C-alpha cells in the first residue's frame, strides 16, 4: 500500500480525474472530500465489504438443493413475509 502524508487542505490525485482531499481532522475523525466522475462508485469500505460477503454467501450452493424444494418453499414452508416494517 502506498502511504502518503497530507495536511488539512492538501489533496491527492488518482489518475486524471479523481481527487481525494483532506477536509478536516477532528480527533480520530478525518473528513475526506472525493471528486470523481459520476461513473465511479464511492462507498464506505465496511458497507461494500458486507455486500461482497453477502454475495459470496448467496452464490454458495446449498448441498442437495433442488428446484422442487424451492418451489415447495414458496408454497408451503411459511407465508412470504409481506409485512412492512411500518
Amino acid at each position, binding site marked *: 500500500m502506498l502511504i502518503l502524508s497530507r495536511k488539512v487542505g492538501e489533496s491527492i490525485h488518482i489518475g486524471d480525474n479523481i481527487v481525494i482531499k483532506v477536509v478536516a481532522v477532528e480527533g480520530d475523525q478525518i473528513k475526506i472530500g472525493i471528486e470523481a466522475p*459520476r*461513473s*465511479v*462508485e464511492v*462507498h*464506505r469500505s465496511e*458497507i*461494500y465489504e*458486507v*455486500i*461482497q*460477503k*453477502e*454475495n*459470496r*454467501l*448467496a*452464490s454458495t*450452493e*446449498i448441498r442437495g*438443493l433442488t*428446484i422442487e*424444494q*424451492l*418451489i415447495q*418453499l*414458496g*408454497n*408451503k*414452508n*411459511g*407465508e*412470504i*413475509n*409481506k*409485512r*412492512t*416494517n411500518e
Partner: protein
Amino acid sequence: MALTLMTSLFGEVHYEPDEVYIFEQGLPGFPDKREFLFIKVADSPFIVMHSLADDLYFFLIDPFHVQADYEFAIPKYALEQLNIDNRDNVLCYSIVVLREPLSDSTANLAAPVILNTQQHKGMQLVLENTRYSVRHPIFIKEEASLNEPAVALSSEGSNAEER
C-alpha cells in the same frame, strides 16, 4: 440462433443472444462476472440470475414481495451507467441467501440488482444510508405470526386453519 448454457440447476438452458444482460462492473465480490441470464423458476417467487461464464448463480426475489413499501432513489451514477431514461424500462430484484433451514433464508434489500430491460444492462446498486437490511427475512416464522395476531395477513391459503 439459440445458444445453450449448461447449468447444474436446470440442465441445458437455451437462450437467444439478446436475452443476455451485461453487468459492466460485475457485482461486488464478483468483479469479472459480466454476463448474466435471468431465468424464472416456474411456480415459485424466485428468479435465477445465472452467469454465462461458469456455473455461478444467484437466486433473486421481487423485493416488493417481502417489503411492500420498498423504495429508494437511483443515484445519477447508476442512471448513467445503465443508460436509464425511462422508469418503465427499470426492473429491480433482491439477491437471496438461502440458508438452512430454508425458512431462514434472507433477501438483501440494501443492495438491489437494477436492470435496464430495454438495453439489457444491469448492476448491483449499493444503497447509502439505507434503512433496509442486508438480511431481510423472506418468510414469516410460524411462531411470530401466532404471537402477533394483529398483523394483517391475507386470510386465504395455508395458515387459515390456525385461526
